[in-house]
């Protein structure tokens, strides 16, 4: 019985850290999808962020520069998608997926001499008093700076999407390009901006992963976190606040897996490694009908799942 509590407690404490990188990628994908585009290259953008963030940190010694390098790397990759899908009318899913492989190639090539490098990276900053709250205090308030920014970004995005002119234009484009056009907006500029910002946020998530979480770089280190983010956006029904819940869920799955390994559960570690992916598929299936109703109109052509 005490084991169960140990595992549950550990899962909660372990849920926040691994979830942050996915949360950024989910925010990024959410902005892109709200503008009516889907970017499967987000996985590649995360790798770009993780790789170039790490390289810049090693070379300059500055984590801040590393974070910016990661955002630029992620954004640059997503701009290729913006050009191809908007100006060349290519299939979004195939283009995005190819972009992921392209990013994997670039980062494997660029990062190969940095595999053994070590960095100080981002360190946890304990917030006085809050981090001393028993049980979950240290889990939430003893994290690196990017985690605190991620907490703030959710409500900020929520407000931005629903209560600002820019946010409303973005949503309008996602619902109907021609209506947005008739209302005097330039839909393509908005979509390009949304894709670029989405890529930058995914890059930031990747940078958080290599600079704040693992403190190392290795080839393909995101192992599908970007694709998980695409799933989480659907689970989140395109709401930044629900995205936070989703990221916590993904982090929780990883935390649970680590805890079960620590207490020596008699299960193959590879089965535990499957948990995060299975849980994402499971929650998508659970909320799929509500998600289908909440889907931006502009995505329905691509993301349809009924026949």
């Amino acid at each position, binding site marked *: 019985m005490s084991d169960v509590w140990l595992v549950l407690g550990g899962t909660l404490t372990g849920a926040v850290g691994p979830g942050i990188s996915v949360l950024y990628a989910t925010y990024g994908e959410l902005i892109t999808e709200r503008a009516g585009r889907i970017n499967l290259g987000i996985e590649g953008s995360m790798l770009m962020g993780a790789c170039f963030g790490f390289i810049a940190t090693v070379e300059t010694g500055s984590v801040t520069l590393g974070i910016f390098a990661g955002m630029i790397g992620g954004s640059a990759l997503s701009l290729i998608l913006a050009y191809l899908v908007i100006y060349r009318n290519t299939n979004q899913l195939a*283009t995005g997926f190819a972009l992921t492989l392209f990013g994997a190639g670039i980062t494997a090539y660029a990062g190969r001499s940095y595999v053994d490098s070590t960095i100080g990276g981002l360190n946890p900053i304990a917030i006085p008093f809050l981090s001393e709250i028993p049980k979950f205090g240290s889990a939430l308030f003893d994290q690196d700076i990017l985690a605190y920014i991620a907490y703030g970004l959710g409500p900020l995005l929520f407000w931005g999407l629903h209560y600002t002119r820019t946010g409303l234009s973005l949503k309008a484009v996602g619902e109907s390009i021609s209506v947005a056009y008739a209302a005097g907006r330039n839909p393509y500029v908005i979509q390009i901006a949304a894709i670029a910002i989405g890529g930058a946020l995914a890059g930031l998530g990747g940078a958080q992963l290599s600079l704040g979480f693992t403190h190392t770089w290795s080839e393909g280190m995101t192992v599908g976190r970007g694709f998980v983010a695409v799933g989480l956006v659907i689970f989140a029904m395109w709401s930044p606040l629900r995205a936070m819940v989703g990221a916590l869920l993904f982090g929780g799955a990883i935390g649970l897996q680590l805890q079960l390994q620590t207490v020596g559960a008699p299960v193959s570690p590879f089965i535990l490694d499957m948990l995060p992916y299975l849980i994402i*598929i499971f929650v*998508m299936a659970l909320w799929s009908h509500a998600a289908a109703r909440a889907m931006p109109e502009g995505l329905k052509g691509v993301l349809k799942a009924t*026949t």
Partner: protein
Amino acid sequence: MTTPISINQARGIAINLTDRPIVRSLMAIAFAFIVFGIFIAIIGRDPFEVYSKMFEGTLGSKVGISEVGVRMIPFVLTALAASIPARVGLINVGGEGQLYIGAWAATGVALYMDFPTIWLMLPAMAIAGFLGGAIWAGFAIALRHFRNVNEVISTLLSNYVAILFVNVFVFGAWKNPTGFGYPYTANFEVESILPAIADTRLHFGLVLPVIGIIATYLFLSRTRWGANMRAVGGNPDAARRRGIPVLRYIIIAMLVGGGLAGLAGMSEVSGIQHHLRPGISNSLGFMGFLASWMANHNPIGIIGTSFLIALIVVGGDVLQFSGNLPSAAMLILIGLVLFSILGFRRFERKTE
């Protein structure tokens, strides 16, 4: 006597020529190779040397040609795994995972079933591989039908699950007790091995993609069912009104696609590896997906695009070996080729 053609006629011919998809694709491929050549020059290597090494190492020798053929087998099969579902409007990004499960199922038969001859063993393994891949793809279609989960995301994520699933066995129950602790299964008996062709690494798994391409081509272009599939992919509502059982087509297309990817897995373990180990595929299924899109899902075109990707991959291994370029750089070239083929394509009907 021939009359010289006017400038306008010449322009007309040129435009007609560049209208052809094959010409556009070749232009796009040339463009990608030029861009990659510039990239090679920027990182301080000689692009001409790199390309000539690539060419020599692939098409310049018997070994090179057979290696290209060996790579083409899984590329063609996993490309068909993407293209057949694409006919009915499904996007199967799960070829990689389906390949792993197919390899797993075929290995299970090879290790635990006692067929006395190769004539029984290999077909049994192929059937197991096909069923494994098909069932794995079936999960995605069930999620789509019953729970409205888009197949793109479910197939993408299931790739990671499949890779881990294979690890469970090769690190666990199926680990070779005499393998010095390496995560390999025991080596296959001779009945479970696809024989090599003419003393090369090329093996008789070659018949799988050949049959696959011919059967798919004939089925899609010469039968009523092939035409119906196109109708389902174009407009499912219209197809349904014409009395076509849409759901049945969708299920079968996805299962056959997954099955073909599973066959690719069977051919890899039985023809090349002769045991199951982690990382048997290393993105073969993803490359097949790209090959299918490069060819616009046309089965004949898939031969060409799989050949091109095989050329790049084998060339990349040669370059890695000779110390010219790490093979990871080849993923960049493959990405460039796909982007330019998609980008050079004329604006057409939105999607198929």
